[in-house]
């Protein structure tokens, strides 16, 4: 640290003190990487190292965000810091958009470019009986499976997420009007909707495996379906955790009507998750 400013004044821009959270996070990720790599290859030490690393990561996140919250609540963040947070959150979300873009791109490519090729005249040489109909598990597929239908669960899920966007906005307005009761109520409602979404999604996966015979291993259709919806579900989980933390902070009396970027950041993230779902609903389930 630390921008040395005269005692008693606010620094022009807050510079944090030296911190050991980052190195702890790095160590955690290192353990997780080694753990996962050995685990996937049936080598020691394997999954317990992943668990250890993950626990360490959670500890780090708690500590780090705890520090940030402390700094924020003690008024060290000037308006300029707030603006920095806004820029950073926007670009972070943009990077997430690009991550999903890779998977959407894969789906587009597999369906509209690779599939027609696999079933064209020349490729009859290799795959004489492949018709090339979407959905497909590829020319060597043995097991039969059914296509995911947009109704009823995905449609209900769409509704749930859209509603949660509305409830979150209501909560935001309540925060701005300093109506704590309404704020808390709608926060809880939002999180509940998110949780319900996840439950339905889990149920849908269960159905896919047991009733439809659709698995992660069901060729390209299974791959794209489960990875797209799976990563989305993972992001919903993260968003819900963020909202939960924010809800707790609201309950503790954090935030003021005009200084609550953490709330807004979580809300932006939630809306982003929402938009990704709309894309999924159309591209994965409908078309």
């Amino acid at each position: 640290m630390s921008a040395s400013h005269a005692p008693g004044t606010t620094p022009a821009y807050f510079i944090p003190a030296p911190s050991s959270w980052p190195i702890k996070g790095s160590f955690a990720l290192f353990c997780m990487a080694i753990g996962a790599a050995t685990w996937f290859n049936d080598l020691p030490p394997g999954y317990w190292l992943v668990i250890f690393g993950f626990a360490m990561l959670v500890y780090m996140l708690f500590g780090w965000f705890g520090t940030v919250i402390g700094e924020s609540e003690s008024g060290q963040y000037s308006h300029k810091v707030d603006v920095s947070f806004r820029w950073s959150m926007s670009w972070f979300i943009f990077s997430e958009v690009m991550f999903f873009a890779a998977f959407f791109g894969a789906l587009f490519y597999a369906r509209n470019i690779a599939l027609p090729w696999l079933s064209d005249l020349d490729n009859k040489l290799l795959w004489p009986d492949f018709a090339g109909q979407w959905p497909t598990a590829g020319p060597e597929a043995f097991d039969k499976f059914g296509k995911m239908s947009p109704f009823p669960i995905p449609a209900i899920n769409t509704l749930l997420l859209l509603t949660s966007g509305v409830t979150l906005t209501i909560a935001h307005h309540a925060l701005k009007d300093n109506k704590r009761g309404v704020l808390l109520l709608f926060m809880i409602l939002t999180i509940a909707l998110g949780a319900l979404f996840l439950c339905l999604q889990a149920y849908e996966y269960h159905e896919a495996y047991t009733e439809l015979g659709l698995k992660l291993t069901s060729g390209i259709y299974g791959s794209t379906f489960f990875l797209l919806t799976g990563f989305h579900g993972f992001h919903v989980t993260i968003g819900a955790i963020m909202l939960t933390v924010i809800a707790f902070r609201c309950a503790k009396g954090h935030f003021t009507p005009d200084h609550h970027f953490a709330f807004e950041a979580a809300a932006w993230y939630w809306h982003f998750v929402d938009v990704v779902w709309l894309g999924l609903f159309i591209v994965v389930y409908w078309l």
Partner: protein
Amino acid sequence: MSAVLPGHAHDDHADAHGHDDHHHGPPAGFMRWVTTTNHKDIGTLYLWFSFAMFLTGGMLALTIRAELFKPGLQIVNPEFFNQLTTMHGIIMVFGAIMPAFVGFANWQIPLMIGAPDMAFARMNNWSFWLLVPAASLLIISFFVPGGATAAGWTMYAPLSSQMGIGQDLAIFALHIMGASSIMGSINIITTILNMRAPGMTLMKMPMFCWTWLITSYMLIAVMPVLAGAITMTLTDRHFGTSFFNAAGGGDPVMYQHIFWFFGHPEVYIMILPAFGIVSQIIPAFARKPLFGYASMVYATSSIAILSFIVWAHHMFTTGMPAAGQLFFMYATMLIAVPTGVKVFNWIATMWKGSMTFETPMLFAIGFIFVFTMGGFTGLILAVTPIDIQLQDTYYVVAHFHYVLVAGSLFAMFAGVYYWLPKWTGHMYDEFLGKLHFWCSVVFFNLTFFPMHFLGLAGMPRRIPDYAAQFADFNAVASIGAFCFGLSQLIFLAAVIKCVKGGPKAADKPWEGAEGLEWTVPSPAPYHTFETPPQVK
């Protein structure tokens, strides 16, 4: 190691601290570097880290060159040879070049725009300290069963599916390095957009800041895409998905599309900051303002935008339809136009200047000269029919070492010599610097120029043994490589000597230099611009 790190002996301000228990000075010794939130400390860490990686990657390259010195298999077996080329590429690209530029950004951007530090100083620390576990994973992978991944730095499926645990370690290392890059980029964008000193409008900003701003956008756009591609590789390897497996309806070529959507912008990520550094140095030593500042900004942006629509020029031989080949050929060739604008502007800056040729200027001129040769071979490769003849031959290897070594690396050498006085407070040894320069250019060309001939004659890349007719040029290249490698020890010596002592550097050691960084003392105090300067 800390003995040779630029010490901040002037680690003043201690008196101003202590009014609250958060406000003590940085911890001493090792912990200072582990926990630091100071952009200068972090910049230093980045630079030393990347140099260590450069030596590591260089050692791998020398082993490759030793094996290729003459036909036949003598030093390494083919499996290990492939591991060497793969890890050489990965380590140089992700371990040496990219972090080095982030190191420059850390040191210079706050100094250049008059900011007290980076916008997110603590996250900045994490960006750096993520690199260390990632690099460790890569190094460890040499020692695991089956060894490091040998699928090429491009890690094409389905070869990558055949690899052992080394592939998984590389995947996780890239995930972590990607996270580091994204955090670093967010930090840089936010710093530049939000923390400029009053009066420093975007169009008054030093060129280096502009190039990094644009580079950051590119990083944020493409690193997640790489993460997606290698995640698919990972699930194909271990969880039975079929993204890149035709039998399951996937397509190995799809991997290449996703990879190169990242990969092509990536090569500009490795050159734009180099353009920035050179754009600082040429005006300083020509004692004349940068010619065509605005058009430089537009040219940089055009390169960035075009770089997103040219990726399939790496895939002309995969058998895409003619329309695709034509589109990607035309788009690729267009990039020569904004790049040319940059070259012309640099030369116009030199024109009718009052030039002197200290080491930074020598490297900057060397950069323009040799990089342009690499650019022209790039243009030749962009012509689809010629590329089909030359794809995956040593011609390509020659092309990209011209742009990466004589491009990115030379620009970084230029930058190091240019800013070392500011970083250490001492002048470097001009004789060593010049010696480093002349050895580097000569041996660089000795190493890589013959590779053009090898490629034209049809020698494929990534092979441990070759037809005896290729022997002579390979021998020349290998000799050049060893000399080039040794020349880099001169650089190490020059830097260490400068860190340890030397003539005291003035605040502004270069007569023609401009910018806020030269208004602070040399070495730059631990904290600078705590109250923002006013820029007119």
